[in-house]
């Protein structure tokens, strides 16, 4: 038998299942120490999650599958395996898209394993922390979460877009001189469009009042997707909703939390709790799936005296399509004679289990034909800030997504998450494919207004 | 036992009454390096090259007991020498059947049908005999009795010798006992028949059948003089290249619906005249189509297996060689039997080696001699076609089962 040079111990003599955790190879306690060990035991190693995982689909490597990552985390926690560079890479490559949770028959809560493990891994890391590098500090945490700052920062970028400078820079290769992640950030920008004025504090219901709702507008999305916020508000008005837009609201905190910074995320959450008077609205509505998933999780991310209050807030949070579907949509009448396809955003489909509602709403647009998107449930590679932190895998997945979209023959893609919209737009733009990428609320709004989308 | 001219050159026939006796005979023959020719009903001996080495004939016909028939499990365990007819009658008493067609069922044995992988029109709807053998006992060329599979319908323990021995033509082992999966007898059956003017049109109709709403049990394409004036089908219309026969089985309501539906679909494809053959006519047609490949021991019968979409092209090529050729094709499966009324060895060789075999290869398959007169001298290549790339590994498997090379020497593709 061959033996592995340098292998510390005989791998055949692994501790039997259920052995209490021993000390890790490294001096630091394992990043898994704080995780409820029962969550590891929920995984019976059946492997049904593997091909639901985008990174496994691309690489075919068990280490880059949910089952493999759980196995690695458990091996590190058990002290069987050191937190090597290889192990770190496999865990970092996870999109946290939760497709595996949808596939798992045993109800494994993968998110509750990978998220705290990565947070602890960051905190213990001997090298520069992921959240401490310039990109995270200034761009992700500094810029992304401060809408006003971001709007101002974007002005020069917008101007250069209008002037065709980005195109010119792309063509001359100037763009390639910028650091890769910043370059991607610039490439992500949607085509220049006037954002329009900010939403007012209240948009009153049209017709009989059926509900009173608050709209979450977020940070990144408010800058880049203000037209969609307007569209969402108008659709809600059409459906008899008073729409409140609290002005003190802030970023949901997802970017921080997923990058391993729990404390700033808690502060943002508590600011939002103050901004939204959740007791006096029927629902808090979100049209960006990533933010929605985070807001719905406020109740169990932090264990402190405010937990119950956060849970009460989270109970009111609904995706806008989920809410309209249960309210009963006032049928729009404007015909939109197009063939469209719908991409399930991970944070809507997997994290919030909202899959049929947006499809049912879209089906009510006269003339619109909805065709199935192959691999609709596979992540497009946006995954929050993943497209900025793991550009290579992200690019592979967006290529895969666009290939699937093109297979449908449809030129209209609808999806309920800002990240997916940007990602798919960028991919289409870079490949010269003319594609209308829109939020379902954009299309519903057009139908109510009896307008046609610009293709 | 019907023994044709091609029966192996044997000094005597031994008919053991038990598997143990059979094993002893084989062990003795192995020790003496005497060739052994296992024979069931003797209905499939015209297939392949004639045996040259003299030896013993080993009959399984005394091994004909029903070992176990738990009808409610829908399985039966029988010895290999049981005739297909008596098996059929027994199963019918419980409303069950083995939906595998075998010609000359009164003499053909279940062991022989398995060893030769005999099939007929029903294989389109039901699969072939390999899909029904779930357990097998046999004696290898050393005289060692062994088994594989079991008596349950789902079982993945060990190598699947049920499949390996099916169609092995007695070259690996002598089958002594089998367990079969059964099906319920169909309540009703019928044929829908039409004449088709050209082979091109035939392919169009066959291709449409792939998308049909009906579920055929058999898709048969027949051509040639005798089929054109068949008394059951009636005389063929004036310009008829081939006749298409679609057999359906099932509950009476299903059969009625399918015959109507198929006639409707055909009308839409421009086939105005089609007829339904049911009741006793249907039964007779099933039986006639089942018997066709072995009906005549004279002449030359070739069995080709090609892509289903290439059947009509192959049929056209076969008839171009001789207009009088009689054709039956399980067109859904791509199997074509071509029967030429007469051939001398001089004519047969080029027809096979330069005509039908290349045509079959071009159509994604192969062609082998299924029956020919004993005096027709053929080469290995003429009978089996171009050397199969897998024949080396087949020969090595054969060596493990039959190290002395005594079982059916020279009869198989892979063990000359």
């Amino acid at each position, binding site marked *: 038998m061959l033996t592995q*040079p340098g292998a510390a111990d005989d791998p055949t003599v692994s501790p039997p299942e259920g052995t209490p955790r021993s000390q890790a190879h490294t001096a630091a306690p394992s990043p898994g120490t704080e995780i409820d060990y029962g969550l590891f035991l929920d995984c019976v190693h*059946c492997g049904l999650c593997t091909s639901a995982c985008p990174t496994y689909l691309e690489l075919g490597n068990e280490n880059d599958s949910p089952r493999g990552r759980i196995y690695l985390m458990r091996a590190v926690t058990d002290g069987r395996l*050191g937190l090597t560079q290889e192990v770190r890479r496999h865990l970092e490559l996870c999109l946290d898209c939760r497709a595996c949770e949808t596939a798992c028959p*045993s109800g494994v809560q993968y998110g509750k394993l990978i998220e705290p493990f990565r947070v602890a891994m960051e905190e213990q890391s001997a090298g520069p922390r992921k959240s401490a590098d310039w990109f995270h500090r200034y761009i992700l945490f500094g810029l992304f979460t401060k809408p006003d700052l971001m709007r101002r920062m974007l002005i020069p970028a917008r101007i250069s877009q209008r002037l065709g400078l980005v195109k010119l820079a792309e063509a001359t290769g100037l763009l390639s001189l910028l650091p890769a992640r910043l370059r991607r950030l610039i490439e992500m920008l949607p085509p220049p469009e006037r954002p329009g004025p900010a939403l007012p504090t209240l948009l009153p219901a049209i017709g009989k009042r059926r509900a009173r709702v608050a709209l979450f507008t977020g940070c990144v999305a408010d800058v880049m997707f203000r037209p969609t916020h307007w569209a969402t508000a108008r659709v809600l008005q059409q459906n008899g909703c008073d729409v409140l837009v609290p002005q003190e609201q802030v970023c949901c905190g997802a970017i921080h939390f997923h990058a391993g910074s729990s404390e700033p995320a808690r502060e943002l959450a508590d600011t939002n709790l103050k901004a939204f008077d959740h007791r006096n609205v029927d629902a808090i509505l979100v049209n960006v799936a990533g933010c929605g998933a985070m807001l719905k999780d406020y109740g169990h991310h932090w264990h402190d005296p405010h937990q119950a209050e956060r849970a009460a807030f989270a109970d009111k949070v609904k995706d806008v399509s989920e809410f309209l579907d249960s309210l009963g949509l006032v049928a729009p009448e404007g015909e939109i004679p197009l063939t469209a396809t719908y991409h399930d955003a991970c944070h809507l489909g997997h994290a919030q289990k909202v899959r049929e509602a947006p499809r049912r709403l879209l089906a009510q647009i006269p003339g619109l034909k909805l065709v199935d998107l192959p691999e609709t449930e596979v992540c497009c590679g946006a995954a929050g800030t993943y497209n900025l932190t793991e550009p290579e895998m992200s690019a592979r997945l967006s290529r895969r997504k666009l290939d699937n979209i093109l297979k449908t023959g449809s030129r209209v893609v609808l999806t309920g998450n800002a990240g997916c919209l940007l990602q798919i737009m960028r991919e289409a733009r870079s490949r010269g494919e003319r594609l209308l990428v829109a939020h379902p609320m954009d299309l519903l709004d057009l139908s109510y207004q009896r307008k046609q989308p610009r293709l | 036992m019907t023994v044709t001219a091609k029966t192996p050159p044997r000094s005597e026939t031994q008919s053991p009454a038990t598997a143990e006796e059979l094993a002893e005979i084989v062990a003795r023959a192995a020790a003496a390096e005497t060739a052994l020719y296992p024979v069931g009903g003797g209905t499939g001996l015209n297939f392949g090259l004639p045996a040259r080495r003299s030896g013993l004939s080993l009959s399984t016909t005394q091994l004909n007991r029903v070992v176990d028939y738990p009808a409610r499990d829908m399985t039966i365990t029988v010895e290999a020498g049981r005739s297909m007819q008596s098996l059929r009658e027994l199963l019918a008493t419980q409303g069950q059947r083995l939906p595998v067609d075998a010609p000359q069922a009164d003499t053909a044995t279940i062991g022989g049908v398995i060893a030769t992988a005999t099939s007929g029109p029903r294989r389109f709807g039901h699969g072939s005999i390999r899909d029904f053998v779930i357990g097998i006992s046999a004696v290898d060329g050393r005289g060692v009795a062994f088994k594989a599979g079991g008596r349950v319908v*789902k079982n993945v323990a060990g190598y699947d010798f049920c499949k390996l021995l099916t169609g092995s033509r007695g070259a690996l082992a002598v089958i002594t006992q089998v367990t079969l999966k059964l099906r*319920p007898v169909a309540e009703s059956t019928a044929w829908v028949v039409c004449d088709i003017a050209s082979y091109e049109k035939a392919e169009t109709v066959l291709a449409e059948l792939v998308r049909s709403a*009906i579920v055929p049990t058999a898709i048969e394409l027949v051509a040639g003089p005798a089929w054109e004036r068949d008394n059951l089908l009636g005389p063929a219309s004036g310009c008829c290249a081939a006749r298409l026969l679609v057999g359906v089985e099932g509950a009476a309501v299903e059969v009625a619906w399918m015959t109507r539906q198929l006639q409707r679909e055909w009308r839409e494809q421009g086939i105005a005249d089609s007829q339904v053959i049911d009741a006793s006519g249907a039964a007779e047609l099933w039986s006639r189509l089942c018997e066709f490949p072995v009906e005549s021991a004279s002449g030359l019968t070739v*069995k080709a297996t090609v892509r289903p979409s290439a059947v009509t092209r192959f049929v056209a090529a076969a008839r171009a060689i001789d207009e009088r050729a009689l054709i039956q094709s399980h067109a859904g499966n791509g199997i074509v039997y071509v029967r030429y009324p007469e051939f001398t060895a001089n004519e047969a060789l080029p027809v096979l080696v330069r005509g039908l075999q290349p045509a079959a290869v071009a159509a994604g398959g192969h062609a082998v001699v299924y029956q020919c007169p004993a005096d027709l001298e053929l080469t290995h290549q003429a009978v089996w076609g171009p050397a199969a790339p897998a024949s080396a590994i087949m020969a090595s*498997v054969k060596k493990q089962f039959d190290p002395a090379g005594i079982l059916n020497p020279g009869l198989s593709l892979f063990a000359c």
Partner: protein
Amino acid sequence: MIATRLPALVDRLRAVVGDDGVLSAHSDLVVYECDGFVIEKNCPDVAVFPRTAAQVQAIVRLCNEFDVPFLPRGAGTSLAGGCLPVGGGVMIVLTRMKEILEINLRDRYAVVQPGVVNVWLTQALKGTGYHYAPDPSSQGACTIGGNVATNSGGPHTLKYGVTVNHVLGVEAVLPDGTLVEFGGLSEDQPGLDLPGLIVGSEGTLAIVTKVWVRLTRDPQGWRTMLGIFESVADATNAISAIIGAGIVPAALEMMDQGILVAVEEAFRFGFPLDAQAILLIEVDGLEAGLDQQRDRIIELCRANNARDVRLAASAAERQLLWKCRKQAFGAVGRLSPSYCTQDGVVPRTKLPYILERIIDIGRRHEIRIVNVFHAGDGNIHPILLFDERDADQVRRVLAASGEILDECIACGGSVTGEHGIGVEKIEFMHKLFSAADLDVMARVRHSFNPAGRLSPAKMLPTAGACGLEQRHPGRRAAM
């Protein structure tokens, strides 16, 4: 000594498949130490990811040159340790050979590479009116190459058969590195039925690099029913009555009271908790005949004392019924910290008997056992509940599992209907087969795999196979 040659082997493998196609760091190999069977573990020395058959050939030749064992692996969902690299060596991971090469509806076949996930083929066929029939419950993850290795089944095998009934041919790399085709798109190829032998050979004869599969027409319609019974005997009698009446259901699944309670607690389907057994019965085929079959089934269930027979009135209700069946195992996880699923087969008529024996065995060993059966096939999946941290329970679960499988053999059945022998059930081969049977199997293996480097110590208890002493039962989900 041999270890000194590992770096050279790794270099040579990299030259074949590229740097990103070889894993050799220990921390990259740990996840390959087991599959869905976690009792025995062993790391391979190298994992290699070929993309073409030619690369597989080159890898196999290198393994021979370096005299190291090697074995193929697909998605690693085997429940019997089929992918356990006994003796280490080179693991050939086929997950990058994942193209559907051809779909031909006219000739009703598809050609796929071994790493294609089972359900991808069905998805690719959506809307064509055809599908690939074998549908193991793990079909969302397991590969067709793996299905070929284990001759996978699924809930629909009663009517449609298992993998071997749908494989027309395979292209495979033999243990000496030769590439061959067995069978192919035309049926009845002359010579031996080697595709039939390769299917179910658990990777001990050859590494399959391409598969020709038969496609099956979609049924026109379905009728899905749920029969609720006061006793297990009534339910099993109903099964026999249905099959005896000449009906071949597309699926016939049984769940006993124990699993019913678990499913109900988890999903609230509204099942009566005092029912002793429920049958999920599905017939499919031509609309013209379905109502007649449905009425007959309902009548037969009632005649066998069914308390109630519910009919799925819509596609959504049908899905709900199947969901309750397919998620049964997930629900079991809520009943106990650990569980072990067995895979035995008995003749259908022996179902009431084996169930009695299982209850008795569970009582004697003080182990709670709940049951899900592919009742139409007589394929039983008793699920033994325990706490793996309790050594005594672990010992009792092992003893009870062994006794259940012994009972299956005594009933004329088998110790595996669909999971395979792998390493898990090697010791049962002596009970199922005689020394002569096993000798012939070993000889066949030898004719393909004379050096024994391919998948050593799998399936056959021959020389080189260590007698695995089970320390611990498996904790498994799907089947």
